[in-house]
């Protein structure tokens, strides 16, 4: 139509998908044959000389110039390009004799196992062959199924060929060398002797061999004879002879550059060195063969060639003697290899990195970039009418003066370097449409990042601010998402180079759009450290400011540039004084034109509820209440201003208003606090940790009390009077009790410190407001350091029966086992110091080990979940379109936007409060309970509240529950004020009526506003299509792992039962481990109130051996017969309610797998006596009897063998059982156990017993339990997604290399994960197709991925647009 139309011009060509025929649809992996190699090659390499005398690459040598230039000094002889231009050309090398390819060695072995070594046909019955072929040809079968089938075929293959009758031997590998042999030793039959005797008259009879070597030449011949159908049956995509190397492709010289050193020496690449060896050996072999050298010498040479070719491909193969050279596989493998180092992650330009430092004067969204850096990082700006003067100035300034430019790309196509003179001319000639690579300036969009990039907030988009000096600076409020501090951390900076990239970065990665973490919706960018301290001090109840200082403080927060409405002073007479809280009113709402009405309540750390009064009257001022942007009461601390809360000030601002409101408020707070604390001063000194007289005395008392208590326990223990805890022995009980007491001492000392210290004490202030430190830290400095523990126990015995030689043997006193009674102020004694180092070292080792472990876990999780995204039909799918969830998290909501506790979308209380405050009552327009319900029902009947409309029933239920609660309060108020139910009747101006309205009435307008806000906000929280929730989920689970400390968990009430938690447990769950370290089955009893039944069930579960319940097991030797007599201890059995009789014991003995007695040998004499005689096969009776005698006590007569022990837990007169061990099914089947309420923490066992859905639920529950155990809240949606992904294939797949190969079928993705070469070789063997759909594959191929903004595929058919006609239709057409 209009061909000459101007294309949209961008600074950099945006990625435009080429239409139709040029798109890479898939990559097929296959094996290169010798013919292919020859066809591709430019040159045949056969000379073993690399350089000739003139230090020029020798023709036909390994660096022949026809294969491309080996370094900068040469040009290509084929394409005449130089080192940077020529991509290189292949050569080829003909091998005299074929050799095996190490990568396919196992495949070759497996094929040989299945075919006849005489005729090359498959060793299967014709009928079987047909069936297998049919299944193998199924188009739907995925690679894992095919592998499975292949294994089955291999087992089915016989030894005798049905076509030629040849009897095949066993094919196997000979040791670690690359030799395949056919072994006939097992096939010896009668004819063998005959044959041997026939040969015996020959002198050299030994030459008859049972083991044949299958040399590559023979295998090649065999493979060539194979039928195509047989190949298909063996899942071979191609002809098998390609698996054997006959020709080697010599890689182009540019990928194995040669460095010329002075004095005519050259450094060759590893590959060249290996190839040189091959060329050498090859020529020697050829000469040997032609010159008729002895056979053994030829074979030796052939073997050497085989090894060298193997080294070329994989230098780490076991057959290669020394692997100092890097083979081809080594180039691909590992973190620095091609896949992970160059294809999945690439080096980029326009980046910077320096040390970071704080600057509270910057906005939250800004980053200060040093001028030196800004002069190197540039942005290509296109010249247009409005910026031409600015850019001219930039060009004139050139490279070395700050607001300058480095290059100018003129529309003529030439690039001008502005380093040199003549800039003025360039500037004057600047035209619209030219591009100037100008220096960074204020407001440019940059990406800012700190490693380790554990979650998406580790890479955010800031606005640049060019500043002097040499560090990157940003507001301290943004430390949290990066996990940065200023002790020398460095951070990275990237500059996006196109407008498209800038826009996308700003909207998706901007700091203001990432204030909340998608982990659980908590705010992450929030005030820290000093900001909290100063806010805390400013809002103290007794902080008063006169007019001058109040006005000064007001000017601090807006740089004196903002218009501020000065509020009326709180104290008018005798002097005008403003309080610090009023300063915060100004901070939140500086002037009347700022329409921010903040309403929130938060309980701070020091909150204690006053009796019979409203919470606001807390004597310590710990209840924060903002009403319409006025701070009513409360001293602000971490709960209100800090990160990690959902109903803090900034969260509420963000949810109720917008990100800008929150960000600007944060900025004002940062400026105010930084300046205020700079004037006020805040420091810590030795006097801050000097305890007063009273403190010393109180501490001494607590320590003495604790010590005495411990000594009492020890004395009791020594006498054996200690009452045992359930499931513990005496020593364990003692440890438990002492541990308890000592821990109490420390927390008691902490409390004393918190109460006794003066309020101006700096550590106290910091711990109270939550900026740094805990009461424990304070008590460690001032009062005592406390118990040091190693591995969760008191200090272990480093010497015989004692921890240190300073203490008596077997001493269990607190001080002998690592209790430090001194504080850091008083100083530790020598032994205390030693114990302290033990605990300190454990911490250090732990963190070091954990970082590596969690990093790997995160990597695996991300690799497994990277391609999961939400689609437009609300389903969650992977890249190939397989559905993982029908509706994300069962409601399709964004975890980052959740306001309520436990991932509920809204915090109704806060919202209700806001509506009530911002939308006040009119006179007496309160609704009656009936009217409220009526309005609610009416609203609920609208379509957007129905499940079809996209509203989850859970949300609807919660909303209606909340309204019900309000109605109940209303009724209570009216009752208390002695008013009747319905206010409509006496609508007069009764005083009480008015009061009740003001206390808890709802007007029609308020209710409407409330409901509308709730519902509309609910819909705003829906996740957008394309969201990469897979990666977000993986990061949300992986990132908290780094914060977890080693910790085991005690069951409440059952002190002795420990459960692994922390990283090891998460790892177990994610790996879907078959053996977990602490399997526990929780059971409920059918009659849970009876202690007796609990004990009976316990007896049934715990394994009881015969030795434990018998009085004696002895051998009886009588002349008539010999036997073993077993007498059961009936008293003991009765007392333990075990219900064991001689009959059940007999049954148990007969069923024992290792005893193997027949029923007639075990005879019950009476109810408690058994006689076991031995079968009379052996002449000697005594030895079997003795061995039986040692075996018998170990026979399990009752209980489940895999159960270690069962512990009864008593909880409010209700008994339940904790069973340590496995075999879920047997526990559920035990009489007395309520099977429907029995759970276990063993995922695999749940899957085997109850099925895949139960396993999914168990995964969710277990991850949640573990995370909760560490006080970490993670949105349930992430865990659901992970669990779904681990189970959606129908079996529990771990996030390991084994599980991932079953989950994904992209070769490239698997190759970039682990076992690179294996996946590539397997892919080539079976001719796998990679459709390049997933994230890894697309990154490797350099194509935008199909999630996030890449999910869109908008096409417009321009031609088909109908032309609009104005005017009447023509009469004659």
């Amino acid at each position, binding site marked *: 139509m209009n061909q000459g139309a101007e294309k949209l011009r961008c600074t950099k060509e945006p990625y435009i998908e080429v239409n139709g025929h040029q798109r890479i649809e898939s990559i097929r992996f296959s094996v290169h044959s010798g013919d292919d190699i020859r066809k591709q090659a430019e040159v045949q390499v056969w000379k073993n000389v690399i350089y000739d005398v003139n230090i020029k690459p020798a023709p036909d040598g390994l660096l022949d110039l026809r294969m491309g230039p080996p370094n900068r000094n040469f040009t290509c002889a084929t394409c005449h390009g130089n080192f940077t231009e020529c991509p290189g050309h292949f050569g080829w090398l003909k091998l005299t004799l074929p050799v095996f390819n190490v990568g396919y060695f196992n495949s070759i072995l497996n094929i040989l196992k299945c075919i006849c070594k005489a005729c090359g046909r498959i060793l299967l019955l014709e009928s079987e062959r047909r069936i297998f072929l049919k299944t193998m040809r199924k188009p739907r079968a995925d690679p894992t199924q095919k592998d499975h089938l292949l294994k089955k075929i291999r087992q089915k293959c016989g030894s005798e060929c049905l076509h030629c009758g040849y009897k095949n031997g066993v094919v196997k590998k000979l040791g670690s060398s690359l030799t395949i042999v056919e072994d006939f030793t097992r096939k010896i039959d009668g004819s063998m002797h005959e044959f041997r005797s026939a040969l015996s008259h020959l002198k050299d009879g030994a030459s008859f061999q049972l083991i044949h070597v299958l040399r590559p030449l023979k295998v090649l011949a065999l493979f060539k004879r194979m039928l195509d159908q047989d190949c298909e049956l063996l899942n071979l995509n191609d002809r098998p002879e390609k698996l054997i190397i006959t020709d080697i492709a010599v890689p182009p010289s540019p990928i194995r550059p040669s460095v010329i050193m002075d004095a005519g020496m050259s450094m060759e690449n590893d590959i060249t060195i290996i190839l040189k060896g091959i060329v050498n050996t090859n020529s020697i072999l050829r000469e040997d063969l032609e010159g008729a050298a002895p056979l053994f010498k030829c074979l030796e040479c052939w073997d050497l060639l085989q090894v060298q070719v193997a080294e070329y491909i994989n230098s780490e193969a076991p057959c290669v003697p020394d692997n100092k050279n890097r083979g081809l596989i080594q180039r691909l493998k590992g973190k620095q290899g091609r896949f992970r180092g160059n294809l999945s992650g690439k080096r980029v330009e326009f980046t910077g990195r320096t040390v970071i430092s704080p600057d509270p004067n910057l906005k939250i969204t800004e980053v200060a970039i040093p001028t030196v850096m800004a002069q190197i990082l540039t942005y290509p700006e296109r010249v247009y009418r409005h910026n031409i003067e600015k850019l001219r100035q930039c060009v004139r300034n050139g490279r070395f003066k700050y607001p300058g430019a480095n290059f100018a790309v003129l529309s003529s196509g030439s690039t001008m370097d502005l380093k040199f003179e003549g800039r003025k001319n360039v500037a004057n000639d600047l035209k619209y449409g030219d591009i100037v690579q100008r220096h960074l300036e204020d407001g440019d969009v940059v990406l800012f990042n700190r490693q380790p990039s554990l979650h998406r907030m580790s890479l955010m988009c800031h606005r640049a601010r060019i500043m002097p000096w040499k560090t990157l600076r940003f507001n301290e409020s943004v430390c949290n998402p990066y996990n940065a501090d200023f002790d020398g951390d460095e951070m990275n900076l990237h500059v996006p180079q196109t407008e498209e990239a800038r826009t996308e970065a700003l909207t998706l990665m901007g700091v203001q759009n990432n204030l909340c973490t998608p982990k659980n919706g908590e705010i992450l960018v929030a005030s820290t450290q000093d900001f909290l301290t100063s806010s805390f001090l400013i*809002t*103290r*109840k*007794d902080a*008063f400011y006169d007019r001058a200082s109040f006005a000064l403080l007001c000017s601090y927060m807006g740089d004196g540039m903002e218009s501020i*409405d*000065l*509020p*009326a*002073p*709180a*104290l*008018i*007479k*005798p*002097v005008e*004084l*403003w*309080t*610090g*809280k*009023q300063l915060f009113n100004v901070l939140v709402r500086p002037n009347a034109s700022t329409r921010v009405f903040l309403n929130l309540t938060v309980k701070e750390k020091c909150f204690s509820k*006053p009796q*019979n*009064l*409203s919470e*606001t*009257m807390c*004597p*310590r*001022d710990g209840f924060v*209440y903002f*009403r*319409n942007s*006025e*701070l*009513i*009461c409360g001293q602000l601390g971490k709960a209100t201003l800090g990160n990690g809360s959902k109903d803090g000030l900034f969260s509420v601002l963000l949810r109720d208003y917008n990100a800008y409101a929150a960000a600007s408020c944060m900025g004002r707070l940062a400026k105010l606090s930084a300046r205020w604390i700079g004037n006020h001063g805040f420091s810590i000194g030795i006097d801050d940790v000097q305890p007063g007289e009273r403190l010393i005395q109180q501490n001494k008392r607590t320590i003495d009390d604790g010590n005495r208590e411990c000594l009492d326990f020890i004395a009791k223990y020594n006498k054996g009077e200690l009452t045992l805890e359930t499931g513990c022995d005496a020593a364990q009980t003692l440890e438990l009790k002492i541990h308890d007491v000592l821990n109490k001492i420390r927390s008691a000392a902490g409390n004393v410190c918190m109460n006794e210290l003066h*309020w101006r004490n700096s550590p106290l202030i910091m711990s109270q407001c939550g900026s740094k430190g805990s009461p424990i830290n304070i008590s460690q400095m001032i009062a005592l350091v406390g118990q040091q523990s190693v591995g969760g126990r008191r200090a272990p015995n480093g010497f015989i029966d004692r921890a240190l030689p300073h203490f008596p043997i077997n001493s269990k006193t607190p001080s002998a086992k690592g209790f430090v009674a001194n504080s850091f102020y008083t100083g530790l004694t020598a032994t205390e110091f030693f114990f302290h180092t033990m605990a300190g070292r454990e911490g250090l080792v732990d963190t070091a080990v954990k970082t590596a472990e969690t990093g790997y876990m995160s990597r695996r999780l991300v690799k497994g979940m990277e391609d999961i995204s939400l689609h437009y039909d609300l389903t969650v799918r992977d890249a190939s379109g397989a559905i993982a969830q029908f509706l994300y998290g069962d409601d399709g909501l964004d975890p980052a936007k959740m306001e309520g506790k436990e991932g509920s979308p809204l915090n109704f209380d806060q919202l209700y409060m806001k509506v009530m*405050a911002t939308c*006040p*009552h009119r006179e007496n327009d309160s609704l009656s309970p009936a009217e409220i319900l009526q309005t609610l029902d009416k609203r609920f009947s609208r379509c957007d509240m129905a499940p079809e409309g996209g509203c989850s029933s859970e949300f609807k239920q919660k909303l209606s529950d909340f309204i019900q609660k309000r109605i109940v309060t209303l009724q209570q*108020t009216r009752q*208390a*004020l*002695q008013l009747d139910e319905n206010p409509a009747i006496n609508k007069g101006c009764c*005083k*009480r009526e*008015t*009061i009740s309205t*003001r*206390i808890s009435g709802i007007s029609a307008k308020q209710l409407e506003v409330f409901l509308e806000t709730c519902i509309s906000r609910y819909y705003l929280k829906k996740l957008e299509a394309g969201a990469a929730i897979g990666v977000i989920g993986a990061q949300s689970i992986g990132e908290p792992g780094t914060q977890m400390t080693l910790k085991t968990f005690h069951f409440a009430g059952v002190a002795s039962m420990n459960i692994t938690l922390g990283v090891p447990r998460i790892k177990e769950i994610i790996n879907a481990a078959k053996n977990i370290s602490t399997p526990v089955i929780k059971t409920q009893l059918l009659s849970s109130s009876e202690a007796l039944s609990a004990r009976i069930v316990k007896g049934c579960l715990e394994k009881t051996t015969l030795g434990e319940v018998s009085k004696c097991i002895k051998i009886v030797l009588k002349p008539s017969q010999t036997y073993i007599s077993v007498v059961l201890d009936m008293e003991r059995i009765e007392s333990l309610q075990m219900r064991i009789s001689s009959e059940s014991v007999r049954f148990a003995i007969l069923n024992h797998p290792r005893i193997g007695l027949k029923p007639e040998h075990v005879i019950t004499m009476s109810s408690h006596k058994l006689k076991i005689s031995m079968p009379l096969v052996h002449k000697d009776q005594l030895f079997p009897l003795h061995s039986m005698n040692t075996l018998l006590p170990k026979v399990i007569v009752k209980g489940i063998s895999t159960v270690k022990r069962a512990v009864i837990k008593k909880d409010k007169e209700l008994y339940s059982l904790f069973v340590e061990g496995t075999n879920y099914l047997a526990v559920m089947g035990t009489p007395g156990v309520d099977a429907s309420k029995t759970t276990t923490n063993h995922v695999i066992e749940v899957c085997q017993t109850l099925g895949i859905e139960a396993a999914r639920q168990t995964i969710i529950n277990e991850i949640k339990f573990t995370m909760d155990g560490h006080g970490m809240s993670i949105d349930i949606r992430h865990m659901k997604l992970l669990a779904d992904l681990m189970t959606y294939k129908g079996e529990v797949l771990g996030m390991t290399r084994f599980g991932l190969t079953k989950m994904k079928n992209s070769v490239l993705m698997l190759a970039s994960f682990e076992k690179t070469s294996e996946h590539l070789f397997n892919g080539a063997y079976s001719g796998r197709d990679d459709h390049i759909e997933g994230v890894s594959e697309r990154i490797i191929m350099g194509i935008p991925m199909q999630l996030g903004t890449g999910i869109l595929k908008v096409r417009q058919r321009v031609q088909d647009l109908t032309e609009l006609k104005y005017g009447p239709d023509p009469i004659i057409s």
Partner: protein
Amino acid sequence: MVELLFEDIFTVSRVDPDGKKFDKVSRIEARSEQFDMYMQLDVNNELYPLLVGEKFTMVLASTLNLDGTPDSGYFMQGQKKSLADNFEYVMHGKLYKISEESAAGGTNVKVEIYVSFGGLLMLLKGDPSNAANFELDQRLFLLMRKV
């Protein structure tokens, strides 16, 4: 003329019932003579020390202007004559909560009124009839004079 919302004479019964938490501010507990109101009030004791047993008049008004013109909410410069002239201690704040007595009361329920003077809190508890003048978010002046 100014319409006073509440006026009564109180006697201080306790100072800092929960212990002294702040240097310059103490919480006093007082009881009134006329309406038998119970009051808790945070007072700047540095400027206006109150001791147990002392009596004072307390007035709550919605404006300080003697002619009764409503308060603007913002501070006005100038030394006009005002209601404050007759009092020793004047605070300005906002009523933020009205509730019935938290404890389950019998027949005569009491109503609690909460006011915040820039973080210095006041609780006034008494018969519902006294509370009718007050409404939420009302700007209030508290004026005190020792008797």
